[in-house]
């Protein structure tokens, strides 16, 4: 279809608006780190001289790499188990297994804290059972961070493995068998090499997620700093120049990762394409022993996955200061829930999070879908630029965005496109929107790429106007992709911690920030109630609409 003048102007307008919101703050950060308009490299010099800074950079890198290794070690075998075998409870477990990816990182962290922390349920049980004077371990440092990362990020490997195995042509396996290859030989010489593109994709995704991870290092890191926590610490210490340099360094690493991803995506289509066929059917495990083993393994896994969240629910029913040295809490009641509902000040964060997430998601959905459509229609330089604006923010760690937005929108200089938004009602919804845009945009792009525009032509040739066609044809067919994007965006915004901690004001404090202050006040029960709220809303939305996209 021909591109109309209106579409071109709309595309241009949106491109400028998004460049202002997404690219401009990053440029401002870079400019201020460099001390422009003069050139002042003092902060960079300090960064280079301080061993702490280098350590944070190095630790960011190796924590991310180790997270990839751990996530792969859990996710790949799990993917094989669920793709190739049939056992009791497979379908239900299949839903549970992907749940960690949908839960707000902070909720996972506090759930781990309540379970494995110094006075956590499991720690305490072991200490009592073994009669130890001290807890058997401390949930702190790199080990604790990696535990949380492995727990939430194996899902990437699991999903990518399953998707790749579903596309796998079983005749390749039959050919290998016909040529005399045994089971292990086939696995290492045929199956795994064919999975490499998917696994590299999952690895990059995990690396980028781990690189930007904030909640786990922030709560468990202590003196062990990674770049995102180092940035926030510098900011709190008033070393703003240093915070900018650190932000620039983190962004540089992220952009390098993004460049790898894009390069890899471009190659993948030529390398991995072409295998089309029937995926091998699931093997029904024979013999009661094997079935029992699979069942036990599966359900232990489910228990391991659910235990943190069950603990969170349990803690939410423990009244304040009622549980001291006992193994299990002596009293359980709903006092925490009642407190929360009765006190406006405590209910406020819930309402804040809800309205801000709704506004951000609605905006991200509308604009993401429009930009995705325009980027495909307009093609050319403008189309590519729009696509880049949709995809790039995904790679930028939340901390980088938060610092960049804080920097850009705390100055009033209308002629430079800078306004004071920090400290107002709108800075958080804006930050959530910018962070959600790649989520909705990417799924809209994926949906639109599969959408056959000839269906719209068919509708028009049958006498349907533009609006009727949109309502009856385009929207219903794109709905799954849009719903998946919107629900993931909503979950991200609702549970956001990483940008909120930098940008919140008292009046707009979201649930995540309130969880942190409740923990500081030893108000664990109320913190758990907030956690349960985020967990249940996120899981419900994710299970209802979030999974349409597959990956």
């Amino acid at each position, binding site marked *: 279809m021909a591109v109309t003048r209106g579409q071109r102007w709309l595309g241009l307008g949106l491109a400028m608006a998004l460049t202002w919101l997404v690219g401009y703050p990053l440029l401002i950060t870079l400019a201020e780190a460099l001390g422009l308009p003069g050139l002042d490299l003092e902060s960079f010099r300090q960064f280079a001289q301080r061993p702490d800074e280098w350590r944070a950079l190095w630790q960011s890198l190796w924590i991310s790499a180790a997270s990839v290794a751990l996530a792969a070690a859990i996710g790949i075998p799990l993917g094989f188990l669920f793709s190739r075998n049939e056992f009791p409870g497979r379908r239900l477990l299949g839903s549970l297994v992907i749940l960690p990816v949908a839960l707000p990182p902070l909720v996972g962290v506090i759930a781990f804290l309540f379970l494995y922390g110094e006075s956590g349920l499991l720690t305490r049980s072991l200490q009592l059972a073994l009669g130890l004077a001290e807890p058997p371990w401390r949930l702190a440092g790199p080990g604790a961070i990696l535990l949380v990362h492995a727990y939430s990020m194996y899902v990437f490997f699991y999903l990518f493995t399953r998707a790749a195995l579903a596309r796998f042509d079983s005749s390749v396996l039959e050919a290998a068998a016909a040529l005399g290859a045994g089971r292990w030989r086939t696995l290492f010489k045929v199956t795994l090499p064919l999975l490499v593109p998917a696994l590299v994709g999952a690895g990059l995704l995990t690396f980028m997620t781990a690189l930007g991870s904030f909640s786990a290092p922030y709560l468990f890191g202590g003196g062990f700093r990674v770049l995102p926590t180092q940035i926030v610490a510098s900011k709190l210490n008033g070393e703003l120049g240093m915070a900018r340099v650190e932000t620039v360094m983190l962004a540089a690493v992220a952009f390098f990762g993004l460049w790898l991803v894009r390069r890899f995506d471009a190659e993948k289509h030529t390398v991995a394409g072409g295998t089309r066929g029937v995926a091998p059917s699931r093997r029904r495990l024979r013999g009661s022993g094997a079935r029992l083993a699979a069942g036990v393994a599966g359900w232990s896994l489910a228990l391991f996955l659910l235990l943190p969240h069950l603990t969170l629910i349990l803690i939410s029913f423990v009244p304040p200061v009622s549980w001291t040295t006992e193994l299990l809490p002596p009293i359980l009641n709903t006092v925490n829930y009642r407190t929360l509902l009765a006190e406006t000040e405590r209910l406020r964060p819930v309402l804040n999070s809800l309205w801000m997430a709704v506004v951000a998601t609605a905006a991200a959905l509308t604009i993401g879908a429009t930009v995705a459509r325009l980027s495909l229609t307009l093609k050319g330089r403008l189309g590519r630029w729009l696509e880049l604006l949709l995809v790039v923010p995904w790679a930028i760690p939340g901390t980088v965005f938060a610092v960049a937005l804080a920097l850009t929108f705390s100055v009033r200089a209308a002629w430079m496109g800078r306004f004071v938004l920090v400290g107002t009602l709108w800075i958080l919804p804006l930050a959530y929107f910018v962070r959600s845009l790649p989520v909705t945009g990417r799924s809209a792009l994926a949906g639109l790429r599969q959408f056959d525009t000839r269906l719209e032509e068919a509708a028009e040739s*049958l006498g349907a106007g533009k609006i009727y066609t949109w309502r009856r044809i385009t929207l219903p067919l794109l709905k799954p992709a849009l719903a998946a994007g919107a629900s993931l965006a909503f979950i991200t915004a609702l549970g956001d911690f990483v940008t909120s901690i930098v940008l919140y004001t008292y009046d707009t404090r979201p649930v995540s920030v309130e969880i942190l202050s409740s923990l500081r006040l030893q108000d664990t029960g109320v913190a758990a109630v907030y956690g349960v709220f985020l967990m249940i809303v996120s899981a419900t939305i994710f299970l209802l609409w979030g999974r349409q996209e597959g990956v």
Partner: protein
Amino acid sequence: MSFLDLVGIHKRFDDHVVLAGIDITVEEGETLVLLGPSGSGKTTLLRILAGFERAEEGQVRVAGEDVTALPPARRNFGMVFQHYALFPHLSVAENVAFGLAARGTGTEEASRRVDEMLELVELSGFGGRAIHEISGGQQQRVALARALAPAPRVMLLDEPLSNLDPTLRERTRSQLRAVLRQVGITSVWVTHEQQEAFDVGNRIALLDGGQLQQLGTAEDLYALPATPFVADFVGQAGWLSGRAVGSGRVDLGDGVRWSVTSAEGLTDGEPVRVLLRPEDARLVEASEHTLSAVVRNSQFVGHAINVEVETADGNRLLVSSQIAPEAGAMMGVEPLENRASPRAFHDLAFEDHAVQDPGTSL
């Protein structure tokens, strides 16, 4: 009086001329086939008719009304798409009802019309099925029923059979043709297959390189091709070179002279190319009155044997025969009486036209 008129249609994509001034008229109730190789502009022409593309110049008129500027939704044309473009989330009946609902037809009337249409395409009782539950041929007929339901003025079909496997194609072709005739709707049907064009078209417009090569019945195109391209594209063509003798004869060299037809007004002595259809010639024993040629190859095609022969000046021809002579044998080629070919064309017409090697066009 003509019902559908395409007048002086010009279309360019960037610097590339896709259609260079096309004039076509379609009579009421007629099926006109737009035939041509890929890249000939036939699909673009159809999309201009439908309103999905705008021509830089030219007009589309229906029953005297200029519809050039009307959007597709307001032309009241039906269209059957190459890959059907059935709405995957709607049932068979909902697909057929779509155009009626879009025009605000009442539910009762619409459902009566849907039943009527499904009966027409022999799919009564399939209304409740999902699109993915029916076969490719059935999907094709649903697409036709859907396009016919709002009673369009003109039916456009874009390579409607290309998505079907060969065995199904012929049967679906006659079903489609029967329905179009029964409804009596004016139709424009795009295809690149000559057999399909001959079977369904009352007339055929043969396009190449954005230009209308010839507009006429199948018999016209086959027997009286206007250009060497038409002769090559429609049926099998062998080519000889010679010089015009007067306006009705050609000297092929060595004293061999044939009577030829031509539409071009030959000048005495001008170089010409001569079309010879395989079935318009026969093989005889070589003599000084016949064109002599060496047998290269024989191919059994069922009702006859196509013998490929090569003349002394290197032209290759196919000649239909009842016997298969040995390869390497010297034979004489003789035209049959009162046939369309041999047919002579100005040699100049070949400047921009590469003659197909008969060996590859089999």
